[in-house]
């Protein structure tokens, strides 16, 4: 994959002009205080009227991988924090034209709508399959621990 810095610069501008409410996406700073456009610090709010409402989750985007920091309790998030989502997978639906906005909205959708066909961590997956009330309790705990900024 060739990273096109110009495109990422344009992404940055587009994001500034128009981004979904409550989301954050900004390139990380290098020790010299310049921007590293390949690594973005992002924040995804839990969708309204879902279990995840009221939280803001931090995500590191190193194109095209998204990684929750710290790792998130979710069936489709690997123990390392990496998100298992088809649009982030170069062998599946990822295309260079996919924007940060699409990625973050895709992950937000995934939060409340896990894909049981692609389990990535046993902890959340098993609870999701086996004991939904306990799963929901854990999610509520995650929400409490990740209040908005």
């Amino acid at each position, binding site marked *: 994959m060739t990273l096109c810095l110009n495109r990422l610069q344009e992404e940055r501008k587009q994001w500034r002009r128009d981004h979904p409410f409550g989301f954050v996406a900004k390139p990380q700073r290098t020790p010299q*205080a310049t921007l590293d456009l390949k690594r973005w610090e992002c924040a995804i709010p839990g969708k309204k009227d879902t279990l995840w409402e009221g939280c803001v989750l931090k995500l590191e985007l190193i194109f095209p991988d998204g990684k929750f920091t710290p790792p998130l309790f979710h069936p489709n998030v690997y123990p390392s924090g990496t998100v298992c989502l088809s649009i982030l997978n170069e062998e599946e639906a990822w295309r260079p034209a996919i924007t940060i906005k699409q990625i973050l909205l895709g992950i937000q959708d995934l939060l409340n709508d896990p894909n049981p066909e692609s389990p990535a961590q046993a902890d959340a997956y098993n609870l999701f399959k086996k004991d939904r009330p306990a799963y929901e309790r854990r999610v509520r705990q995650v929400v409490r621990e990740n209040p908005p900024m």
Partner: protein
Amino acid sequence: MDSGSADPISEAHALVTELYSPANQRNPTRINDIQTRLQHLQRGDHAWQIADSLLRGPSAHHRFMGALTFTVKVNVSSHDIDEATSLQVLEHLIHHFVTIVKQGEQAMVVRKLASSLVTLFRHSTCPCERVLWQVAASLAHGGFVSEQQAQTVDFSTSLLPTLDTQQATALLFFSVTLAEATLRLEDEPNELVGSALGRAITNTGDGLLLVQYILPQISEQSGAALDKQVHQTLGSEVMNSWKAWLGVASNRSLPNGDEVHGLAVSCGHNIIETLRVPVLSELAASTLTQVFESRRSAFDDTSIWVLAQVLADSIVTTHITSLTEGHEDSESMTYVDLLVAYLSHLQLKVFSDPMPPENAKILNVAHNIFKTPGYAVIDDPATPRVLEFWNEIAEGVLDELQGNDPRWQMIKAHLAQVVLGLFNKLLYPPSDDLADWSDEERSEFNAFRHEACDYLLSAYPILGVELVSVFQESATNHLQNGDWRGFEAAMFCIAQLSEAVDENGHADQCLDAIFGSDAFARLCAGGETGIPLKARQTLVDTFGKYESYFERHNSLLPGVLNILFESLNFESCAQAASRSFLTLSKSCSRVLTSELPIFLDQLDLFRTKPTATSSTMPKVLEGIATIVQRLPTDEEKVQTLERILSFFVQEATQARQEAANSAYDVACSHGHLILSCIASIGKGLRLDADEVINIDATATEQNPYPPSFWNSGPGSRAQQFIMESMRLLVVDFPVDSNMIDSACDILKAGYTESSGLFVFPPSMTVDFIKSFPLGISGTDVIMGTASAFLASHASHFIQIRDEAVALIVHVSQLFASMLDNSNLYDPETANAGIDFFARLTPKYYTVLFSLTEPLPSLAPNSSYQSTPAFSVPLHFALHALTRPEALTLRSASAFWVALIDLRGNSAEETAALDQVLHSFIPRLSQTLINQVAGRCARSDLASLGDVLRRLIFKKMAFARPSIDAALDALDLHTLDDTSNRVPILSQQDKSRFVQSLVVARGARQQSTEIIRAFWLKCRGMSYDYAQ
């Protein structure tokens, strides 16, 4: 076709009348029936005549339907219209167009007919090209004019001046429709629309000439001859037309591209001039802003120069200035958007040296936007917009300018001015104002504050520590005066700047001025009760963000921690306070030991408060334990720990009582709080990372549980407290996955230590793991703990052989029950159990394979009564490879990979291992081949392929015959066109598959591709993403 109607034309007229009759408006069934019938007629043999007739109809509705009928008929007759028909229909359409315009038809009908004309134009048989010219000529002539005749009269100098306002408006409707349709054509397959697109783009120059002709007309006639409504309609159409033709002008196959582009840019100059025309100004601003965002090449130096004049001194400037004074409605935002679009277009170029006076004025206007009254985002949308520009500048300076660039100082001054302008916008609303805000408004305002801080961080490398000093002065003054809103805003900015200044200490002097002040000392002493919650929340958050500063200035810590403890009592501050307490305790633990008695007293107060929850209390305890760990002697540590832990035994007894009273939810949540607090103490007591014991070290005789201060000395009471709490909350207590998590954390806390409070007897882990029944939620965490336990003793595994055997036997028995009784099968236990074996195999294989006796305590009818215990996990892992659950299949694959890779420490050991593996290879090969031959899910191919690849590469001699046999046994068929069964795989396919894998020599990517291709062939090519 028009079945059931003797006179379809009259019927169509009647249907349209009925369709719009007020009597039918509340009868959707009738409306539906009419529409269905009308659509039938519009597609029928008489559609052309119906369209013609309706266009001469008595009402605008009839004529609208006439135009629509033309469009429908053209669309449904795409194969029936030849060139002659096309020309004939074109003549009709143009004739009608000219007529209805002459008659002063309503815009709705004129637009619809313009759209019908474009539909015909894009038809492949339509021969005309310069249709705009032709329609203009026809309008001027008052009847149809052929394309050839039209082109004998010059379009811009002779035709356009003859058009009256109505004709010009109609021509613009048509022009916009044609341009927008042309843009859509660009997105369609060239083989389908190539000819139409080619003809359409020849109209670009004419479309722009029309724009260029109309613009001065409407500018000159402003407020005079033209009615305001007509003026705005013309203005809107001409600007839409410019936008649309600009898009077409960027088409690479456009003839005379440069000339047309020049024309488009020149139209832009005229549009910029219309910003001065009051009735068109807002429209022009909105159009220009959109074009700045999408077609930046539409502007040249002249455009920018002209726009600078307008922005610096015109009604546009007046609008923005009024907005900043609070006198304008939000519609004036259009002008702010244009201002920002202009500045963003120029970026750093706006700071040219010398700076043109216009740009200086524009920048001044931009700075004044921060003076707009009201809260940013909520009442003032302009501030966030202009801040975007300053953020871009701050980010761009470092990348694009050298420090010695003459513009550096100038830009620095502007960036500093922004900081000063922004400060008032960051003031958090007082509770009265906040009460009126919705949750969304609060979030939006908070998001703005963070955007503003993002700007501060971008500006810091340019402004340096002066930036912090601005906020420091503000914070000190406001603190002194008790202005908490000002203090909160200043501290908020200082907190966000910690990222840039905490570690390097650059701003220490500024921070000293705040935290060393008398006013702050009074705050620490707890005398200040008037501090509002928001200011308190921001302050405690700031403490946590300056851990390095407080490490360097540890004399301030007691006071700071006092504020933190005090803040734990307030719900809105407790989270931030506990987080900051933990951060500071960790970074400054060495100097805080003398404060422990005070902290313990504070803890005693805090733990009875409603804010002591599972989100706050574990953090506080971890912080305290981190400090305890720094006490010089174990004796000192144990005193503190006993005091804390004895409390949890009481609490656990109480939770047990709650469970006994059937208050299960309360009991579990109570139990979870206790266990998570104890686990946090374990985390805090953990030694520094560089002192962690090496679990891979080869110390053969190490005692896994040597007598120590903590298990047999004075510390044993504290350890007993933990074990007692665990016992109370695990044995005969409701099973809860959160509690299991925390209990496992307690056990794991000591696994990386050689001795300490949390280093428990190995039997404790084993008993804990064995105490849970098959199928409970949390099995994966329990088994993960078992794996961690074995890993922590791997270097001296002989010393815990009995415990290892007990765990192996326990899990194998679970496996045997699931194999014997499929109803008991639990995917979580299957996955977690196999994962446990995959992890233990490399280190504990000698323990595992020494279990040659059958498992004890099996069900009497078990099929594994005479099976050696070691092979039960292998049977189970084989079965797991056929399971549909991805995690189980993945861990089973990992187990087989571990087994195939396993090498003994001696030749005898390796031979013995091979013997075990070889006895499983035939069934393993058969399972793998069946799965990769299209049975498994695509997503499982990677893990199954990994096993097959290694099997072939590492165990070729033994595996090859089994794999060949498994392939031979494959009997996959499909049906051909005549429904005969035909085999999917030939013998050649099968042998080529194995041969390719052999040639790949274990290369991962190559093998994966071979296996994937084989799976696709077996499954059918419709599963190929590339198809």
